[in-house]
């Protein structure tokens, strides 16, 4: 988890401290804003197909043990994602 302070508005989030972490590291039930998708064209396209894009609000619905899948909610819709993908969805939250 990276915590840093920034002095300008990023993606509509005003000045302050941002906690940056992959969606899979969030607590179950918590909501955050997607800062970026770390991956190539195909990964970004696949996520886009599911409505997972930068600036979107995303909620962690469930996380399965043994490196299992993660369930997130975007736009009121649930999507199941493999853990590897979820590690590359970086979200930000205001502390």
């Amino acid at each position: 988890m990276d915590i840093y302070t920034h002095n300008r508005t990023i993606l509509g989030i005003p000045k302050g401290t941002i906690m940056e972490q992959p969606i899979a590291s969030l607590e179950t039930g918590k909501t955050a804003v997607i800062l970026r998708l770390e991956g190539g064209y195909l990964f970004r396209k696949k996520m886009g197909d599911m409505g997972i894009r930068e600036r979107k609000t995303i909620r962690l619905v469930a996380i399965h043990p043994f490196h299992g899948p993660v369930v997130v909610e975007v736009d009121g819709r649930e999507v199941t994602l493999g853990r590897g993908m979820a590690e590359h969805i970086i979200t930000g939250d205001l502390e």
Partner: protein
Amino acid sequence: MKKIVLMGNPNVGKSVVFSRLTGANVIASNYPGTTVDFSKGKMRLGKEGYEIIDAPGTYSLDPSNKAEEVALEMFGLADLIINVADATNLERNLYLTLQLLERKKPVILALNMWDEARHTGISIDIKKLEYDLQIPVVPTVALSGEGIHDLIRRIDEARSAEKIEPMTESDRWIKIGEIIKNVQQVTHRHHTLRDWISEASIRPLTGFPIALVVIFTALWLVSFIGQTLISYIFDPLFTLYTPIVMGLSTWLGPGFLQELLIGNLINGQIDYLQSMGLLTTGLYVPFAMVLPYIIAFYSVLAVFEDSGYLPRLATLTDTIFHRLGMHGFGIIPVFLSLGCNVPGILAARSLETKKQRFIVSALLAISVPCMAKNAMVFGILGPYGIGYIILVFATLFIVFISSGLILNRLIKGDSPEICLEIPPYRKPDTMTVLKKTWMRIRWFLQEAIPFLFLGVLLINLLYTFGFVEWLGGIFAPVVQGWFGLPKEATTALLIGFLRKDLAVGMLLPLGMSPMQLVIATTLLTVYFPCVGTFAVMFRELGIRDMIKATAFMICTAFVVGGVMRFVLLGV
């Protein structure tokens, strides 16, 4: 004839719209990827006839699996597109809409699930949306038929949007953002009971107990409905039928025709399982033993499919299935295969890579028995106690898991992770469930009856010409020496290629012990798929992969048969 193609994201109800437009029946369910192939139908509009094509769902015109490739191919053929979109999820659905419009084909937009959008507090300004997209937009509720008339009436208004030019992915999302801001209003809503159930059934701690309860209830329902149908409908029918067929037997007198139609009389009586005549066993197996369970299975499956539970089950099984070289979506082909392997293998098209499709197809063919065969296993092993039946399924389960673990290491290629949309729970519609069940039963009758008759005929011929003895002799070292079964069981394995249910029936007259029956019925699943499954695997996988799969099946059969013999028979 002009071609109209229905296009849209997965699970927005294209197949339901298709049924409404053409009157043709196609299978629709509440999970993404029900339609993996296209269906064609016809529709008359005024004087003109149109061909309507129901394409598989796709998120964009850049395909990422086989089903999406089919969709793109269909797009190429289209003279006019009916773009079906989910009104409850407009933003995401508009991505494909814009891509369609950029290609300058005439499009009309059906905003489906309009009622659900209203209930969830989403309101969309149709007039503004029509203005922004420059095409006609019609709100519809395909399940109830609402709005379908408007859609038909306005089809000839479909046109291409002149002002929408090809753009980059990010420009497309910006444009969609503008449109949404302009046309859509969402009122905040509170969490409902449905949301609560939805989350409980997908979280690991609550999800697994719920899944166990759901699956056991489903199994219990299938067996309860099946047995009830047998005891109260089908068995009484055959009791009425017996005097008729006995009369016919006496009238025919001994000879070839009696052999063929009635078969062997056992102690002067017809034994529906062992007589092997066209009018006795040939009718009893499909109608009194298999059909009741087919009815039971498919009605329960339809409720399952339409409720939206399957994608949640796919999430729960993902962790295990990932070790087997697939991902959780693989549970859907497995479920369909429990009815019949053919639709199961077709459903594998929704998996992304060749490796995943190969593994799931091979596992289905090796270790997932179809309902026709299961019904016979219940019928034959049932009297000895449920323990023997459990033994068969437990063995198949072990074969499924271990074959998956092995194939995942043997087969080269990628196994991408799961990325699956979870549809909202919906209350299954009684009419839809009944219609779907009836379609599948009819399909079973059309496919199964000819092959069963052929099988019974073939058995008679084989016995008449002494082929059974000869074949038994050749395979005796394997069947008798290695599997510990009587050598006559070879014929059952041969007939199993035509119909597995009939093959199970053929084991009965051989006087085997219950443990031998367990081995033989398990092997009947493992050794080779039936001809229908073989044909569809051949088509889907190609000759090279089919040879690979066949080699794997034969090896598995040897290992499983041998191990079972030593464990269960102890010799």
